[in-house]
């Protein structure tokens, strides 16, 4: 048997040929654009490469020789990643388990499902504004940075992470649901037949099997969190250095304000005040590397997805 023709063959009408060529063009353009971005950022990143910048704290000064590096933004990004993952992963997995394994009553499940879609579609700047009014309430003041005189500003790592977790949440829910749906019914039935309750089945059988899916969703979510700027600009404020909010070293750190790589790039670009494009380029390069690494994690997890026994 001859394999079906794969390319453009004789006798195709002109319209079809045009479409075929346009499809090729679109695919190659896509590769071209991605290559251009990576190569350009790598070129700029290596051009302004300076390891010292990674270890220095930034200073808000116009003199670029003294304005320091971006140690604090890197630490800030790490804090946000950890805190928001701690919120988003358990919450997302819980929602996904309830939706796929229980999902009763139907109307409620459908409503929650569409609500997750709504959260996914809400612009991060709107989430940030909501976070601001929410954390500005007096009784939540202990979670955020105090202004002098005790006014509640509603700005802190905790506030930013809480809103960031909402960006990651839909991704965790989506990936976990997909993983749970991919587990065949007979696996559940086998577990019930052994006398396990539904709760035990979920905990001991389904969640371990869905672990790659959960990992994929979490890593994707972390990528989005690392790359978001609007929430940082609104909820962490414009301080470059990390300021301790008081109340214990760790909790005070979380209550404090600071910056992340994204806000550092934003404020050092011509759009902000910093006017230090070299530092912005290098910080953006570091950010891009972080994001690409997270993506690499996703690909690795996705490849090792299939635990043999569920086949």
């Amino acid at each position, binding site marked *: 048997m001859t394999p079906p023709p794969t390319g453009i063959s004789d*006798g195709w009408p002109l319209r*079809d040929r045009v*479409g075929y060529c*346009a*499809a090729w063009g*679109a*695919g190659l*353009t*896509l*590769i071209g*654009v*991605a290559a251009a*971005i990576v190569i*350009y*950022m790598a070129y700029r990143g290596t051009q302004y490469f300076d390891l010292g910048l990674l270890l220095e704290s930034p200073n808000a000064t116009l003199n670029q020789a003294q304005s320091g590096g971006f140690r604090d933004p890197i630490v800030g990004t790490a804090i946000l990643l950890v805190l928001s993952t701690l919120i988003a992963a358990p919450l997302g997995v819980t*929602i996904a388990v*309830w*939706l796929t394994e*229980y999902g009763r009553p139907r109307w409620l499940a459908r409503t*929650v499902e*569409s*609500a*997750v*879609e*709504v959260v996914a*579609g*809400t*612009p*991060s*700047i*709107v*989430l940030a*504004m909501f976070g*601001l009014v929410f954390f500005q309430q007096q009784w939540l003041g202990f979670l955020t940075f105090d202004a002098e005189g005790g006014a509640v500003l509603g700005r802190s790592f905790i506030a930013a992470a809480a809103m960031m977790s909402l960006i990651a*949440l839909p991704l965790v829910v989506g990936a976990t649901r997909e993983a749970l749906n991919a587990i065949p019914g007979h696996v559940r039935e086998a577990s019930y037949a052994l006398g396990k309750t539904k*709760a035990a089945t979920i905990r001991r059988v389904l969640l371990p099997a869905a672990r790659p899916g959960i990992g994929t969703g979490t890593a994707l979510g972390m990528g*989005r969190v690392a*790359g*978001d*700027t*609007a929430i940082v*600009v*609104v909820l962490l404020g*414009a301080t470059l250095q990390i300021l301790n909010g008081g109340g214990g070293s760790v909790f005070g750190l979380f209550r404090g304000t600071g910056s992340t790589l*994204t806000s550092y790039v*934003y404020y050092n*670009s*011509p*759009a902000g005040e910093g006017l230090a*494009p070299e530092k*912005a*380029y290098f910080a*953006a390069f570091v*950010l*891009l590397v972080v*994001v*690409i690494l*997270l*993506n690499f994690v996703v*690909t690795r997890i996705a490849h090792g997805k299939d635990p043999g026994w569920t086949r």
Partner: protein
Amino acid sequence: MSDARVERILGAVACIVLALIAGMVVFVFEKAWPSFAHNGLAWFGGGGDVDLQLEDIFNSPANPSDYVYTLHAWPLLWGTFVVTAGAVLIGIVFSLLAAIFIVEFAPARINRVLEPVVRLLAAVPSVVYGLIGILLIVPFVGNHLISVERQESVANVVQLDGACLGVGVLILTVMIVPIMIAIVVDALRAVPGGWTEGAAALGVNRWRVIWTISVRTARPAIVAAAVLATARALGEAIMLSMVAGSASFAPNPIDGLTFLFEPTRPLASALVENVEGLSVVPFGETLFAFAAILLVSSMFLSLAGFAAKQPMRKYGVQP
């Protein structure tokens, strides 16, 4: 723990999301109300310079009864509309073609590259896109593409310096294309093999098969992709505030090609750029009005996208 109780606890946690959305609408609208109430429908109309109006609001007297709220936000709304519509229209054509390429025509070797490429384009932070735009593309456009005559032709209305609508649309297209490709590819792959094979067996060529069978079956997904990408484009703030110019100007289509080179400022960027003024009460309330508009439109778009995906299930195709 009993099974029933586990179910109830999990369900209660899932309902947090509902409470969250309700809270979001209530909080944001409560804050935004004074701005809408003072302006009425004129809020959405045109008239005057938005930047000057915002300045007046920012400088309003400290006495609450003297707060200034007058705002005619049309240039911001129009900017949002033009940028979003432009990016989504270009994006949907491009991503449909790219999705067809990925599903049907790409050799396996190219597909192995394309998959991470799409994921990478989706993952690049918007601030990095903005940085490339503002340091590379904007100066290029300003120095080489905008002629002096063109600058003079609109000199009495607006200054053209390279940061413009066209660059914003271009980069925004690159940013939303991956989302659309992902949705459309999934849908095209989900089309039952028998349908396309049947057509192929009748001697229809491969392009016709995918164009008349797969793409038509996937139409709901294409609509969903466009709608969800619109929601995403609406909320893009950082990149557009960096490359689309720093004037709240409504680009005028009558200007012909110059239209593309005129600066604009969508709602979301106006929000990000003015964030420092949040503590001034009337100014903050005006910003919350911007957020309220974005919240409502993105909510409707998400729900519409969710609904648009459903008809494919009718054919037994899981998008």
